[in-house]
């Protein structure tokens, strides 16, 4: 994350962790969820539980399957898209703001 590398020059740009999420409102963010799921979408709203409303979401589910014959692990990804999604906060592992080129 380039974001974390930038020193916080003034104390009131980001004062608490959720401020980072707040700054990402209306931006495309990356959300990692339990169960090997990832979401990329535009953050419309969030709350303190990290419940989120995402728009234009692309969901990626990673499935690991074991081939019974060769006992090899086959990793498969499933992609879904949703116009609008409510993400319940208890499944959220990580929220990442979009990386900035300008900053």
């Amino acid at each position, binding site marked *: 994350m380039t*974001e974390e590398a930038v020193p916080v020059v*003034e104390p*009131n740009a980001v004062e608490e962790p959720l*401020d980072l999420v707040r*700054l*990402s*409102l209306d931006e495309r963010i990356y959300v990692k969820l339990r169960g090997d799921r990832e979401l990329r979408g535009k953050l419309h709203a969030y709350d*303190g*539980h990290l419940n989120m409303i995402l728009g234009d979401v692309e969901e990626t589910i990673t499935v690991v399957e074991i081939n019974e014959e060769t006992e090899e692990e086959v990793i498969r990804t499933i992609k879904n898209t949703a116009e609008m999604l409510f993400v319940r906060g208890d499944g959220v592992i990580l929220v990442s703001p979009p990386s900035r080129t300008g*900053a």
Partner: protein
Amino acid sequence: MSDSYFGFDTTMPPLNSDQLTAGTAEITEDELSKNFEAFALESGQDFGVYGYDPLADQLVETGDDYNEETFGNDITNIGDDFDFTQSNAKIADTIQKEEKIYVDRRENVPSDNNELIRQRPLFSNLWDDQAGIAVNGNGSYPNDPTTSPLMPESPISPSIWGSYHPPSTRKGLASNNRQEFIQFSAMNLTNLHHPSYENPPNYPPSQISPLPPGFGPPPVARVPTLEEIEKQLQRQAGQSSTIENHQLQRQAGPPPQSQLPPPMHNSPLPEKRMLSLAEVEAALLGMNSRPPPLPIYGQTEGVYREQETAFLEQEAAIREQETLYYERERKLREKQRKLTDMAKYNGLMTQNDKDYINRIQISQLVTDDPYSDDFYYQVYTAIRNRQTQSQMGPFSPNASGGGAGQERRHRNRGSESGMLKMQQQVLRIVNDARRKPKSTQLSLEGALGKIALNSVRNPRQLLQVSAKHTDTLQTHASPSGGTHHKVPSITLHGIVDHRKVLRSIENIYSAVLGLEELRRNQHPQSRQYSDQEREDKWLQEKYTELARKMWEELHVTDPIGISFQHPFISILSVSKGKKVIPRVLRHCNQDQIGAMIRILVANFETLDVCKAAIGGSNGNIKQSILDEVELFMNTVVPPLLQFVAEAPLKIVIGLLTLFIERNNIIWVAKSKVGLAFLTMFLSRAEILKQGGGAMQGLPPPEDREIMQWQESYNRLFSQLQNYFLSSFPPFTSNIDDMYVWQFLAAMAVGASMEQQHVLVTEIRERVLETVVQASRMPHDKAAHKITNVNLFLHALGLDASQLKI
């Protein structure tokens, strides 16, 4: 005897068939009583128990002198209330079939003719009797001599038959003691009512007269009795005719015989009293247009059949009623049971308690801030253009501003209803709540710490995430009157901190939302507080404070040139920053908008929609940038356009000059947004030059201003000369180039003859290419292309159709 249906001794002395068939007229009182005495000896039954007394002996058999008096003489007043046969015709078919079955069964039984004939009338007369009672007992007792308005002077009091129908017996009936009833009616009627058959005037009340109110068992309660009797009769009919059988029949049969309604047979006048049964029968018989069967025993089988039909019909109707009644009765009982179950809780709460609870509940629903508590409803109603005030009713805090007068009015008639009282109390609660903000904590003396008070509006907080945040917002807002230096500068050492830009945007949104909320509360529902002025002042202060904060966060007034990108431009470079602009501008005054547009124009080159939206030689622009351009055109440009469209020429000149001076016009003119701004200025100036400013009440531009404008225009033209074509997006791209034609048209309008010539020469190729291209396109697309070209050509007084390719 043991097979008696009702379990009592049904043995009766055998009747000889002569007696039975000879007709009632021949059976005298004496004979009958003798018969019964004999039977009583034989069977050991004491008929005296059943109330036979010699009253009947005194009856004058033929004296019907008082019939009119007794039964009312106005036969025309007979209503059809008791015409129970009205609907019987509907089921006549079924009944006839039933009867046929019955007759067939009868005829298959080996029995002598006499008996057959004898049994029939018994059977039918049985129905006659029982049905009569059933009908009479049917609730309203219209025939009761004491109550019937038709016979007010009736000398016969109900007490006459009191001895025959002692209340206890009746009660027994009411409690469905059918055995007793059957026994009672069978014996009693046999003994007593037979005479009445011949002496209607004196006797009828005791026999057919309706039961006294309250005594009468519901008709349905008796109907099963009829069915039971019928069953028994049928069973008996199926048996071989032994003496025993005779006796059984005697037991069951005769009562109905004697029960025959006297008036029908004996009295020439249709008696009021007999309406129930006589009318039914008469109507039935009348339907068949046959004379009423006078001597019962002398009837032919056909007549019996008719009678039977009639009674079967009645029976069906009654059965129907019965089921209905039972159902109703069951439900009623169920309800009653529940009520009694709950009755033990009755009176635990006083009306005060109930009101108190209602108040608590309602006060929880009342909100001081409907917009945040019930936002969607509020917006919905606003959209539906309804009078929210009237709709929200008296409980609405906004409608509750009736003040002391309203409250007093309520108090005056407060006792009228608990509801009014409650309303008034709720009003008080709401007003109190408004005066002192809800406390969320409570400190008790001696207690360590505080007790959190939770409510519907203020649930217990599990996370305290927003608390600190609001604090910081407060500290931002609190130093009122402070300069904008208090607002964190977005840049440090000339480098824009993107996060601070975002932070500023969020703060702008917060302020804008706050302003919008204030406006909503101000306008649609003009709040009427007792201290309205103070309230208004408070609102005004709050509004000004928020507007100031918003303005500071926009960083419009930050000096130009300190940072690489002006903070305001940075805000506009973020899509949510663009989106907020229309909402921001609603809370800005004209000066602020002017300042904003000047900053924008002065830093136009650095706008993302300008610098990033200029394609290279291949004209490829990223889709995301195109989206941003679209967004900018839809959000930022329209309100600014509106501002420019009302601006006097002086400002337009200033803006254009600034635009030319601060930006590389050739470069900017390659962007859609840049051209849009230029077009905006050019067309406004042209309108003002032609006196269009008069519409806004602006004085016509002075000559000096026009001179200045012309100077600026010439500067613009000379800079763009030889580069007009570069404004066009490459032909290969699918971008609609209408905005370029619009710009060229605006240029052409203000151009001198020479300038027009230069313009045409430069653009000529493009015009021709476009027209050629259009000729190869489908019609609608071609038309669009031609229209675009015509935008420019019309400004020169030309048309695409004049072009020869």
